[in-house]
């Protein structure tokens, strides 16, 4: 599947970041990394545009749901935001913050693939 999607990966755990980045690049995404919610918000404040955001929940300085609230409040309503966490309470936190979807960790290729395809189709239409 060919894609030129711009993906923002918001993740403080280095191993998780490496694995998720690799998965995204496997689907030919251009990956930008943020180590916490604040860095993610700053990316948007600086005018960067993304097609998809994969966001962990618990991070230093600013959590994933907090970042999602701020990103949506900036008017970034088109970007697909996916919460990714092993926390049992994460889904509710992300969805009420304005995320589009939630995937429990660890992420699998068979889950990520259809999400990427959906974003590509939406972008092309």
């Amino acid at each position, binding site marked *: 599947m060919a894609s030129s999607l711009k993906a923002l990966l918001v993740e*403080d*755990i*280095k*191993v*998780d970041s*490496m*694995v998720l980045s*690799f*998965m995204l690049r*496997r689907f030919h995404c251009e990956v930008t990394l943020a180590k916490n919610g604040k860095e993610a918000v700053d990316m948007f404040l600086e005018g960067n545009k993304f097609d998809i955001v994969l966001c*962990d929940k*618990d991070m*230093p300085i600013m959590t994933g749901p907090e970042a999602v609230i701020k990103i949506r409040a900036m008017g970034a309503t088109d970007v697909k935001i996916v919460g990714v966490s*092993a926390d049992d309470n994460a889904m509710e936190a992300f969805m009420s913050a304005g995320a589009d979807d939630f995937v429990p*960790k*660890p992420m*699998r*290729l068979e889950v990520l693939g259809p999400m990427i395809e959906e974003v590509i189709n939406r972008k092309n239409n």
Partner: protein
Amino acid sequence: MAAPMLNQPNSLLANMFAAGLLDDQFQELQMLQEGSAPDFIVKVVTLFCEDGERIIGEIAKLLDKPCVDYDKVGGFVRQLKGSSASIGALRVKNSCIQFHQCCQEKSKDGCVNSLDSVRNDFYDLCSMFKLHASAGPAGAGLPKQ
């Protein structure tokens, strides 16, 4: 060129799965590695072992203090649990889940015992990975130290 060891049937790897050290997430990483990135698992495992060692060291320092900051300890345990789950380090992940429970209960004894369990499981796993790496050409897929 020989295929990376981790893509070939390997009795040591099979034993690691059978012993509950690894779960199917590791197989997911093996699938990711296929084709374009023969050194992907080497890099991830190396990072896991190095970062895990750092995290365990930080937890030990925190538990050594007379007044333990259980939130900080819990934060580090969360990191190790997360990275364990990402590479399929099943036993380490499960030890971290138990450890997290002790942090929430603010149990010093529980945390100290849990740290021992996590440390043992972590070093068992990393030792097995290093054993792979030292197994000549067949072990070329993993970090050597």
